[in-house]
C-alpha cells in the first residue's frame, strides 16, 4: 500500500545571493514561503523537482520540504525550515528584516 504523501514545497538556494528561495505555482522563484506552490500530489512534486533541477543558473541544491497549509499560504513544519524562512536568531538581518521593511 502506498504510504501517505506529506505535502511539500520546493525550496533551494539562489545561485547569486545564496539565500533561500521557493518555487511558486507559476514557475517563478519567490523568497516568501507563503507564496510557494503547495504540493499535495507526489507526482506533481517530482515533476517540479525536474523543473528546478533544469534551472542551475538560478537554483542550487533544490529539495522538497514538508509543509502544511496555513492562513496565508504554506507554512513549514520542521524547525529547520522555519529558520530558513527568517534568518539567524542572533541578528535581525536575515529575511526577517526584509519582511519587516516591506
Amino acid at each position, binding site marked *: 500500500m502506498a504510504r501517505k504523501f506529506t505535502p511539500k514545497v520546493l525550496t533551494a538556494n539562489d545561485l547569486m*545571493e545564496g539565500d533561500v528561495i521557493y518555487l511558486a505555482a507559476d514557475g517563478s522563484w519567490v523568497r516568501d514561503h507563503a507564496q510557494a506552490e503547495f504540493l499535495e500530489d507526489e507526482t506533481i512534486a517530482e515533476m517540479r523537482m525536474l523543473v528546478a533541477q533544469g534551472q542551475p543558473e538560478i537554483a542550487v*541544491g533544490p529539495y522538497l520540504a514538508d509543509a502544511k497549509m496555513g492562513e496565508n499560504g504554506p507554512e513549514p513544519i520542521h524547525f*529547520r525550515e522555519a529558520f530558513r524562512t527568517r534568518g*539567524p536568531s*542572533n541578528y535581525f538581518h536575515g529575511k526577517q528584516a526584509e519582511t519587516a521593511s516591506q
Partner: protein
Amino acid sequence: MYTYSDFDEAFVRERCKQFRAQVARRIDGSLTEDEFKPLRLMNGVYLQLHAYMLRIAIPYGTLRSDQMRQLGMIADKFDKGYGHFTTRQNIQFNWPTLKDIPDILDALADVQMHAIQTSGNTIRNTTVDHFAGAATDEIADPRPTAELIRQWSTDHPEFQFMPRKFKIAVGASTHDRAALKVHDLAVELVDKDGQQGYRILVGGGLGRTPMIGQVITDFIPKADLLPYLEAVVSTWNIIGRRDNKYKARIKITVFENGIEKMRELVNEEFAKTRAKFSGYDQEVLADLERQFAPPAFKNADPSSLETAVAVDPLLARWVARNTNPHKVENHLSVVISLKEHGKTPGDATGDQMRLMADLADQYGYGELRISHEQNVILPHVAKADIPALFTELAKAGLATANAGLTSDIIACPGMDYCALATARSIPVAEQIALRVKELDLEDEIGLMKIKISGCINACGHHHVGHIGILGLDRAGVENYQITLGGDATETAAIGERTGPGFAYDEVVPAVERLLKTYLEKRNSAEETFLDAYRRLGADPFKEALYGDAKKNAA
C-alpha cells in the same frame, strides 16, 4: 612576522585569477553546480543555510594589524558588517554574494591572506597556542614550525584528495592551550638533553567518534619533522578508509590498527621519505625563526599599572581575568573577549576589527592573534600601556572581563547559519551568558569551559568542555545533550554523557543547577569545576540534572 615570499605572492594571485574565471563560468552557466562545488570548496566557499560562507585561513592564528583592518573592510563592504572567528583560528564571513567573492579574495591577497585549503580533504589551517612567542612556559615560539608546515602542506600534490580533512596543531608549552590532543596530528616542541625536537601525537579528534591522540614518537630531531609528517600523512592516505566517510579520519585508522602497528608502518614509510628531503627545509626554518623574531620591546616603567589597578576595580578585575604573564619583563599578553554577555561568541564588527588593529599598532607592536576559544589576543603589551588600552577597549564594548569564565563559551554557528546543523548553538550560549551575569556568579565559579555544538561534528568542541552541550533534532524539536568532565588541555579527556537531553528552554536552568551544585560541593574556591567533577564523579551532577530518581536511568 612572516611576510609572503615572491613564490607565495605569485601562487595566491594565480589562484585568485583562476577562481574568478571559475565563478564567471558558473554564473554564465558553462559550469554546473556539481562541477563548480569542488572548485568553490577548494577556495573556502560553502553554501550555508541562508547564504554563502567564505572561510579564510589565519595561519597559526597570527594577524598583522593591516590584515585585521582589511578583514574589517571586507566585513563592511562585502558582508553585513561583522565576521565570525572560529575554533580553528579562521574567520568566516556569513553573507557574501557569489559575484563578490573573487573581489574579496583579491582584497585578501593584497594583505597576504587567502582561503586556500580551508575546506576539502586536505591539510587544513595549522593551529597554534595563541600566546606563542609570549608565554612564560614555552620552550620556543612554535610558529616558525607551523609556518614550515604551512609551506609544506599548501597545495602539496599528494595531499589534495585524502580520505578526509587533516588537522594539525603545534604547541611548545607545558600548559597546552592549543587542544593538541584532539587534533589528527599534534606537534609538540620539546627539549631532550639540551636538543630541541618534536614529540608527535596522532589519532586525536572530535566529531562522531571523539578520541584522544596518542604518542607515535617521543622525540624526533627538528630536521626530521617534514619527512616524518609526510610519512604519517602518506601512510594514512594509503591505508585510511575511503569506504565510509565517518571512518575516514586518522583517529579511526589508529584505533583500528593500533598505535604500534601505525608506528611500524610510519617508520617504514619514513625510511623512504627521509631521503627525499635534502635539508633545504632546515634553511627555510632557520630563516623563519629569524622572521618570527620578537619585536623590539620597549622598556617602560610598569608602576603606573599598579597605581591604576589600586584605584580602579574594573581595571583590576579585567587585568586579573584577561591578561597572561609574558616572558619579557614588564609585559603582558591581553585577551580581548569576543564574549560580551548576550552577544554571539566569536563575532566582531568591522568597527571593532579596525579598533583592535589600531590598538595593536598603538600598544601591541602591530600584532594580533585569534584564539581557538574565539577571542582576540594582543600577545605583547607593555604593562605601562594597559590602563590606556583598557579604556579604549571599554569604549567599544571589548573589555568584558570574562576570559576563562563561565560566559567565555565556545559555540559553533549551529542552525542559525550551518547547513549541517541539527539545532541552534548561538542563542543557547547567549542565554547562558546572560543568566550567569544576572546571577553574578561568574567570579565565584572561576575557571569554567562551556562548549556548544549544533551537531555531532563538534565544531564547538563540546566533547572537551567541562560542560559540553550538543544540539540534536529529536522528532523535529531541538534537544540538547549534556556531557561533563571534558578537557582540552594536557590532561585531555572526553566528556561523559549524563543522560537524556533537554528541551531548548530547559538547557539554561540545567546548566544553572550544575553550577550551583559545584559551588555547594567544592572543597575550596581553588577547586575548579573540572577538579570537583573528577573528585566527586558524575553522580551529584546527574542528580542535579535529573533528580535522584532518574539519575541511574541514563
